[in-house]
């Protein structure tokens, strides 16, 4: 699976909780409907998934060899 490039990236791999959650929601507020953003984390953010689904955002997750989870979220 390849991700289409997006300029909207939150690299939250070295951030303490709940910063990744906060920054992702702020980025989603900034981008236009239909645009995509990429969240990078070393874990799957299940609580965030729930909020994304509740708010009607689609997401796709891919685990890279170095242990990074790439979560591509559509606003």
């Amino acid at each position, binding site marked *: 699976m390849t991700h289409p490039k997006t300029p909207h990236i939150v690299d939250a*791999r*070295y951030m*303490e*909780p*709940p910063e990744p*959650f*906060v920054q992702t*929601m702020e980025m989603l507020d900034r981008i236009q409907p239909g645009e995509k953003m990429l969240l990078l984390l*070393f*874990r*799957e953010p*299940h*609580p965030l*998934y*729930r*909020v994304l689904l509740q708010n009607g955002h689609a997401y796709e*997750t891919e*685990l*890279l*060899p*170095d*242990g*990074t*989870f790439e979560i591509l979220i559509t606003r």
Partner: protein
Amino acid sequence: MQALLSFDKSPPLAAPFRFFLTAPVMGMLAALLFLLEGETILASRWTPAALAVTHLLTLGFLAQVMLGALIQILPVVAGANLPAPLWVARLTHAGLLGGTLLLVFGFLWGSPTGLLLGGLGLALSICTFLAISLRALWAVPSTSPTIRSLKLALLALLVVVALGGGLVSVLVFAWGGFDPRWVDLHAAWGLAGWGAALVVALSLVVVPMFQLTPGYPARFSWFLVPAVFAVLIAWSLVQMWADGAGARFFQAGLAVVLAAFALLTLRLQAQRRRARADATYRYWQFGLLSAILACAMQLTVALRPAVSEAPAWSLAFGMLVLVGAFMSFIVGMLYKILPFLAWLHLQNLVPGGKGVPAMNRLLPEAGAAQQFWSHVVLSFLLLLAVIYPLPLTWVLAGLAGLFSQGWLLYHLWRVAHLYWRHLKVIQLGKAAA
């Protein structure tokens, strides 16, 4: 931000708190037993007092925290939501606590009724927990190594309970004599299949998250726990139906796989982006070093089985694994997660988090770091008592255990107390508004 942070599906904190507050009390009971019965405990791993202290540590301390924490974190790390988590917590906690105390009573006083009722209580409560959590977990696809590892760890716990139940029946009903190989399998599935697999599954998430390290390489994460599981199955089959050399091969394999995990975690921690070494970090370093030493001992036994004949050998191994490794991982994790959860729950209740105490006020970091050193002293005194089993050494180790576990209890109680107090103020404020 208030609504954004809402963890609507996360269980109330009362669910895990009861487990976390019980664990150090069981730890203190184990220390008291060590103080009073040190001579018998240190004579051999097979004495009733040694079996009692082992189960106070494994069921009373380790399993208490592990099951309590799972109720809280299964939705967070795996997206698996337990139905009625508070009821699951109440039932599991009551059965686990009552069962452990009865089993320990059964061992100490040679009471078949105690053993039987304790075994039944434990089997019923742990199996209820397993049925509910496995059902929730099975509904979730294994999209990450953590989810797959958790499923395997819970299945291993089922094996531990089945083997433990079998051993209790043999003791109570004297069915066909006692075979120590079943005890070894019970311990191996408990320590490696359940305990180590659970620590691995959660480390993949919490080590990078709280210690700001790089992630674990994906291929290694997918491979590790299934490898432990496969080796344990092979070991069990060979142990029961073939000669000793085959069993030793798998024993060595298990030591190598788990040591590789511990070494990799140490390497990741060396690359962490958090400059400050807090209590969690120190506890994990100590736990990982103890685990590596225990794996080295295990490898030595596999190559030279005769060394394990000395009573001190298996006792030292047991203490290294239970107190040096598992207890360190667990306490380290509690010191990080408990204030975070309390803070997060309070934060969610107040707009803007106004008046919610900072995490460091709920549990001062300096206090946790000092308690860590009491755990180090306890571990060394235990090892000293194993090597030199004298009244002075076991009394000192018992006192150190009482002190260290008492201190932990005070810290955990403090977080719970401050949480309830602020919760009450918030609820009163809302009622008045």
